[in-house]
């Protein structure tokens, strides 16, 4: 039987998936299945990125990084809390050419160059999906 692959658990308070401008996004995350000696660093970001026909843009709203202690160990299996006041804009948007996605992204760098990545998407604002219309 093979050892369990390391993975992240990200939980947003109240299991919310939608927020309004100026609200606080809070939650916790932890890395399971990785020995503290194997973890080089853990990062958590609250960010938005675009998707669609245009070149992708990625903007980090909140960034947190954990580094190993003086013994070179980083115990990321204990839940770590985060919170961030969300900005007014840009709001989540499901357009035809442009899509704006918000998410909480956790990333761990392990020894031997391995990476573990996990995302928890959420909505900012209440903009409905766009529909196509004719040009004037």
């Amino acid at each position: 039987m093979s050892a369990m692959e390391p993975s992240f658990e990200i939980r947003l308070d109240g299991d919310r998936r939608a927020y309004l401008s100026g609200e606080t996004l809070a939650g916790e995350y932890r890395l399971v299945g990785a020995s503290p000696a194997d973890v080089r660093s853990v990062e958590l970001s609250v960010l938005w990125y675009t998707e669609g026909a245009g070149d992708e843009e990625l903007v980090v709203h909140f960034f947190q990084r954990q580094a190993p202690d003086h013994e070179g160990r980083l115990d990321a299996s204990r839940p770590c809390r985060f919170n961030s006041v969300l900005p007014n804009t840009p709001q989540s948007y499901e357009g035809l050419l442009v899509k704006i996605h918000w998410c909480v992204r956790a990333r761990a760098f392990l020894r031997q160059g391995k990476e573990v990545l996990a995302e928890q998407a959420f909505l900012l604002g209440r903009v409905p999906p766009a529909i196509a219309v004719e040009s004037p």
Partner: protein
Amino acid sequence: MSRRFRLAGKKRGDRQTGSRGGGSLLLALFFAAFFFGGWALLVAMAQEVLIPQWRANRVFLEAPCVVRGARIDERVSDGGSLFRPEVSIEYEVGGRKYTARTFSVAHFHDGGYTAGRDAKLEQLKQFPVGQKRVCWYDPERPERAVVVRGFTGGAAPALLLPLSFIVLGGGGLGFRVLNWATSAERRATMAQQAEYALQFDRFDQPTEGTEFPYIPNDGPLRDSPGTRLKYRLAMAVSSGWALFWLTAGCVLWTGMTLAFLVAAVRGFLQGTPDWFLTLFLAPLAAIVYLLIKTTVRQLRFAGETGATVVEISDHPLLPDREYQLYLAQSGRRPVRSLEVLLFCQERVAYQQGTDTRTDARPVFQQSLAQVVPARDGRGPACEIEVRFRMPREAMHSFRGKHNHVCWKLVVRGRTARGQSYHREYPVVVFPTFHETGVAAGR
């Protein structure tokens, strides 16, 4: 294997379909080649030029010598003949006699050839045969001596080449090494901090770091007060400039064609017709005809339609709010029809290879007013005053680096002659503020 580790892949914008690790490795190797190549070149130049020159100036010892001969040494290369002065000397070191054919340290590595024979002859005049002079010899190898010392002027600029290789290669290599195990989020954070530190209050920049980041700055749109309503909106692209360039191009082309025409007619009058020039004139004349026709039509059209004034009761626009709009269409002739639309469009830009391509797609359109005006002969050809409400859940204006959501008022008209025109007035829409969200603060 090839799917897991692709060194090269199609590139579209920042998305690379090949192996990211492989690409980074190749770039690191590329910069490393520049960096270490620069150092190798610098060491070679130091060994061949800089160190010998420095030793000749600082380490070589002075000794009396007798000039036994002087000549110009010539070398023929692809670019022509190259020359260097050469002096045969006799000198004595430690009781032992030496003879050498030399001039400067460049002789030690068979160099010193440059163009210009006369300049070398001038240099050799200082070394008449039989004259006693001084030379400088290498104490470690007394058979090597020079009769001229100093640093050549070409050494310093030549250093720029290896130094630029070292700086560019080292910078690129350092950047790749620093980013080797850095996440996209961390890189973006660092880039944002650097960008924010350098950001000035510019209208064309996203308003990052403000209360409403990534919404276009609406300051310029509120600069112009209206006569009926609070703000007068500016047209997106002025048709006046397009007309100016068209007219300027027409005048320039016509003038050039006339100059050719005069030359051709003169040839016929003098009995030496230039048939090639005459044939060449035919397509030029056709282009002149088309340009004049288009320019006259556009000038007449501009005179007929006149300016379109659009004023609005408030700005920026907010969803689910009501606004008043005033439109005045001037011009010598009445317009046949006029329509004002509220319009939203997504615009994107993307890199495809070395090209930057753009695409646009409308996502909202609402006709605010449509009229068939009747002109009374005085005042503007047409005036419209209308109230409209912004959609309740409209997406706010958005300006990223490559992706935009743009709102605008569009005026569509048709002249009495049946020609249609289209004018756009950008507006900025701010987001919805729900009960738990923050207030607009404007």
